């Protein structure tokens, strides 16, 4: 040990070993449920993207010969009260729901992670400022803030900017309540990373603050961010569905999984299939993302439970 020459190369090599990436996928693969969930999610995403092309039925096409029909050869999942094919609508709904979830998580990551990083690394005044800001949003129980924002600005946004803007608004309002949690996780991780040997070593050899943040802290936080985002997808999907329940989510003619369920519920007695198809899809999605996120969490912390 005493013979080791301390140069930049040696230290860089030590630092590189601290990254989780190499062992991560192996550990993730050990959990069967996580793998099954991942496969399911990828399958669903492919279905949402390619499905409409293969299946070819227009979700807005009304088939008056079968209203509220149970599954048949022509309509594998049945039809709704206006004669729309349920399977086609399901594809469209999946696209929207997954897109909303993706946007929510992107905003969460782009806003929450850097803020948490700054707060955790620099501490002091910046930390207090950012933490208080996060707490302000955290103060709202559950989806209250999202409901408020979506309700207040929803109509005007849709009228002025169209339904894509509405989607962004819905995603934005959901991420308003989601980013503080992400920031908090990242901050906690950075706080513990800050005192680790490889960071102290990097500082000792004179690496710049920015360099440390970029090359040492960030890669080690990335894993936590992705895991937290995966687990939060569940909240995003259910949150969007709750907003749709209150009429504040995606507006017609677009549809989302939550909207499908909500619209179908009044017709429960006549056409139970219409409710159960999106409901089961939603539940499966929730389970899949939960298991995947859980598997990721355990893969990142080999010492954990």
């Amino acid at each position: 040990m005493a013979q080791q020459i301390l140069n930049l190369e040696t230290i860089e090599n030590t630092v590189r070993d601290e990254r989780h990436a190499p062992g991560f996928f192996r550990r993730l693969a050990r959990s069967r449920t996580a793998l099954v969930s991942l496969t399911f999610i990828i399958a669903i995403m492919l279905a949402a993207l390619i499905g409409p092309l293969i299946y070819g039925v227009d979700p807005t096409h009304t088939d008056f010969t079968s209203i509220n029909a149970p599954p048949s050869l022509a309509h594998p999942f049945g039809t709704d009260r206006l004669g729309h094919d349920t399977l086609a609508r399901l594809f469209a709904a999946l696209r929207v729901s997954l897109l909303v979830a993706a946007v929510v998580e992107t905003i969460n990551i782009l806003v929450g992670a850097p803020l948490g990083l700054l707060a955790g690394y620099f501490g002091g005044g910046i930390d207090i400022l950012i933490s208080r800001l996060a707490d302000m949003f955290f103060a709202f129980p559950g989806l209250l803030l999202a409901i408020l924002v979506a309700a207040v600005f929803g109509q005007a946004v849709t009228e002025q900017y169209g339904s894509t803007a509405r989607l962004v608004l819905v995603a934005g309002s959901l991420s308003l309540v989601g980013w503080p949690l992400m920031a908090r996780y990242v901050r906690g991780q950075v706080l513990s990373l800050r005192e680790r040997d490889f960071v102290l070593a990097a500082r000792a050899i004179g690496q710049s603050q920015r360099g440390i943040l970029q090359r040492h802290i960030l890669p080690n936080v990335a894993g936590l961010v992705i895991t937290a985002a995966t687990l939060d997808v569940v909240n995003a999907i259910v949150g969007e569905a709750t907003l749709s329940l209150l009429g504040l989510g995606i507006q017609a003619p677009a549809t989302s999984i939550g909207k499908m369920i909500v619209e179908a519920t009044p017709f429960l007695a006549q056409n139970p299939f219409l409710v159960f198809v999106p409901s089961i899809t939603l539940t499966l999605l929730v389970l899949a993302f939960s298991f995947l996120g859980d598997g990721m969490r355990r893969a990142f912390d080999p010492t954990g439970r």
Partner: protein
Amino acid sequence: MLRFFTRRGISMVFVLFSLTFLTFMIGHLAPGDPILVLMGPRQDTETYAHLRHLYGLDQPLLTQYINYVALLVRGDFGLSFSYEGRTVRELIAQGLPISFGVGGLALLVSLIVGVPLGMFAALRDGTLADRGLVALALGLYSIPSFVLIPLIWMANLAIFRAGYPNLPQAGWGTPSHIVLPVLVLAAANVGYITQLTRASMLEVLRDDYVRTARAKGLLERTVIVRHVLRNALLPLITLLGPTTAFLVTGAFVVEVLFNIPGIGRIAVEAVGRRDYPVIQGTTVILGIAVVIMNLISDLLYHVFDPRIQLTE
């Protein structure tokens, strides 16, 4: 102790400030004019100016906010925009007991069902029963309430069609109206509590003092009741805060779908009618409820386990 309460007090004030400030700003930056909505078909400038003055909307934003907080501290939540003439306080007072009743009952039911199930699962760790229960708990926890509600409605309908006495699908008034909403609210909670109790008990069962108790020759039952239970159930107390927050959000969906005149439904309707005083009032009340529950759970935790430090 005093330090704890001072810090908590400051943090509570900050939370309330955030709630009122953000809600206020969002409400007042909103497009649309609530006075116009309130006036309806009668559109004349005199009434408009008068109403504007009555609601204090002709003053600068910050002044409005300060006035609002000043009144709030005295318990005056202002007048409702859409329910002509009624005070927000009145509306909240109407809905709050109902929501608390349903929520409290749901919490009780979920504890009564969840804790024994969790204990049962922990004691039979690894067996089919245990794994079945874990799967059931996970299922209950994952199903969103608006998925569970149609399921329950279907079951209820089937019971009705089979000729057996059934529960009302929705509405409010008789004791039987409470059953389904409480069931739905409790369901997800049961999943969570079962998982938590099971995990907590498993941890405790591995502890040294349990081995000692067994080595002493005590009956398994005595070991469980006197040593394991007390320590395993402790983490449940920390649940009070987050559970209240969850019940608050759950209340929205349940009250809207079951048509229950609780504070959740009032808030939702107010949101639809752009009734900002009501929205602000309900947000503040619900926020206060969550904060108080967090405080109680922290205090209780300290009471039951003095090792836990109160100061953060």
